[in-house]
């Protein structure tokens, strides 16, 4: 199934031809009225909306192909398994990985990172080892490692951020050292939008034999991710932040590391032979996929990937850069609004956090909702970063393929109206 947004002509497509209105029409929810207004959905860093092709794929799976995967010897089981494994192969191509056995399906990026923490960290992190994190990690790539460090007597080191919201690498020689056993960092920040130099840092960490975990939850939906270029050892992301269903995540890991890891969950599917005396585990990737997986959602994720590829990840990135630039300009026109993160769109993604000097982010969000505008307000599961920024919360508008300048204009107008409403 191809999408309406596909470039069927095969001609190279310029940014001008990025037909956002046609893309919008592929997303039924964007026709919804919220509180009497057209829905302006700017909460894409939390989750994205789903195109019709993904919704239809879910329905079709349950209507025509539903069965458990890998075990049955009947037609539906074969169809279901085929659909499930097709998505895995597609994910591998999407991130430029030749070995599909290295692509493990989880229920989300959080579970993917926890899988590494338990499967690798438990056995490899020793007292005194150092785990390097950045100051801009989401709790999903922070809490597992800090908890592991506490348990193992390991030390957490952090790469600080500059006032502009980039990683501050001036003291990196003192942070990534021969003691470093693991480097865990986000590819793009969910609060600041910053895109980090993962390849450069991975290379440095590898010089000391450290393992590198990339959290791609905010990157994989928005740009071309080439695992080979990134040079990480593990990479995690979530389907629902890239047009796919909720409940599907991906962990990519290097085969030699995965093979030496213990399973995260034990049960059916992940075994080869089970006896009272001896149990042998299944091959990769199934060794890490105990129990019945989230079949229908995995199957439907294939359509999301196709949809993104039909537009083209480079074009998506270009569209978001242009729109982010516009959003940063418009928000800067409102006096007092403070924007977090880099101002240059080259080094940032489309998550834009901002604060008003008087109005709390929750009040901003409630007010915007009354105008049909969905944003996120709070600490964005990044409390350590919030402390660094000296904020308890921020408002965050995050953009995606179906957003337009008119959405940004709606945000701008509503923020001005909000100021009047609260009388500040």
């Amino acid at each position, binding site marked *: 199934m191809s999408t309406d947004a596909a470039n069927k002509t095969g001609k190279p497509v310029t940014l001008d031809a990025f037909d956002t209105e046609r893309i919008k029409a592929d997303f039924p929810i964007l026709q919804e009225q919220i509180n009497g207004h057209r829905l302006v959905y700017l909460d894409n860093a939390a989750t994205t909306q789903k195109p019709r092709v993904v919704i239809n794929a879910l329905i079709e799976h349950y209507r025509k192909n539903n069965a458990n995967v890998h075990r049955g010897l009947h037609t539906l089981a074969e169809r279901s398994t085929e659909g499930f494994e097709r998505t895995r192969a597609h994910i591998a191509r999407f991130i430029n990985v030749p070995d599909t056995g290295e692509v493990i399906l989880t229920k989300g990026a959080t579970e993917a990172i926890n899988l590494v923490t338990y499967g690798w960290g438990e056995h490899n992190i020793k007292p005194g080892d150092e785990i390097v994190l950045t100051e801009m990690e989401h709790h999903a790539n922070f809490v597992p490692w800090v908890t592991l460090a506490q348990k193992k007597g390991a030390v957490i080191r952090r790469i600080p951020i500059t006032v502009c919201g980039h990683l501050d690498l001036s003291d990196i020689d003192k942070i990534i050292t021969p003691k470093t056993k693991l480097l865990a960092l986000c590819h793009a920040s969910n609060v600041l939008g910053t895109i980090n130099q993962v390849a450069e840092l991975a290379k440095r960490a590898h010089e000391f034999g450290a393992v590198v975990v990339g959290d791609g939850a905010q990157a994989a939906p928005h740009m071309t991710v080439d695992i080979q270029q990134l040079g990480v050892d593990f990479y995690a992301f979530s389907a629902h932040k890239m047009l796919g269903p909720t409940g599907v995540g991906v962990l990519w890991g290097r085969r030699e590391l995965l093979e030496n890891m213990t399973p995260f969950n034990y049960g059916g599917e992940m075994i080869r032979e089970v006896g009272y005396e001896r149990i042998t585990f299944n091959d990769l990737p199934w060794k890490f996929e105990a129990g019945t997986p989230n079949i229908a959602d995995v199957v439907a994720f294939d359509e999301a990937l196709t949809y993104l590829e039909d537009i083209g990840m480079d074009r998506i990135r270009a569209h978001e850069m242009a729109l982010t630039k516009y959003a940063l300009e418009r928000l800067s026109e409102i006096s007092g609004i403070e924007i977090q993160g880099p101002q240059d769109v080259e080094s940032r993604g489309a998550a834009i956090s901002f604060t008003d000097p008087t109005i709390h982010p929750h*009040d901003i969000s409630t007010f915007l909702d009354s105008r049909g505008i969905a944003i996120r307000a*709070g600490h964005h599961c990044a409390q350590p970063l919030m402390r660094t920024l000296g904020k*308890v919360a921020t408002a965050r508008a995050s953009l995606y393929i179906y957003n337009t300048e008119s959405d940004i204009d709606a945000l701008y107008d509503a923020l001005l109206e909000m100021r009047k*409403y609260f009388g500040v």
Partner: protein
Amino acid sequence: MSSNLDDMYREIILDHFRSPRGKKEVDRADISSDGQNPSCGDELSLQVEMDHDVLKDVHVSCRGCAISVASASMLAETIKGKSFEEVKALAETVKKMLKGEPTELPDDLGDIEALQGVRQFPVRIKCALLAWVTLVEGMKSYENGHAGHTTVSTEDGNGKTEK
């Protein structure tokens, strides 16, 4: 205008938000209590000067959303001059009102009544409760003869969590 929105941000609430009452420091802090809603980042600090069993003066400062600021301001305005028992009963009433539990609203509830609209926004109820929970904890500590500070969170999960 969304009627829902105006139900929560009533003009009285916005007035308290713009110019919060209870700013003046108390002469002697017999009760001193801090409260927070960690997930919102609301922070509140409250001091009360007692005269026998009467809450003679109150100072409150709140950094947070319009609802938590307005509710704290209303608290400061209302409890001054009331007895310990009266304030305890009032705190119970406010709690019940915000949670939508049946309760008789006293005539002298004043501006606090305007907080009823918050009920339509379940996640904001704890914002309206913050000042009251902080006060009640401070009062309990005072009653038990503990000097010094109490700190309370509306989200600490040990029975005080207000949803």
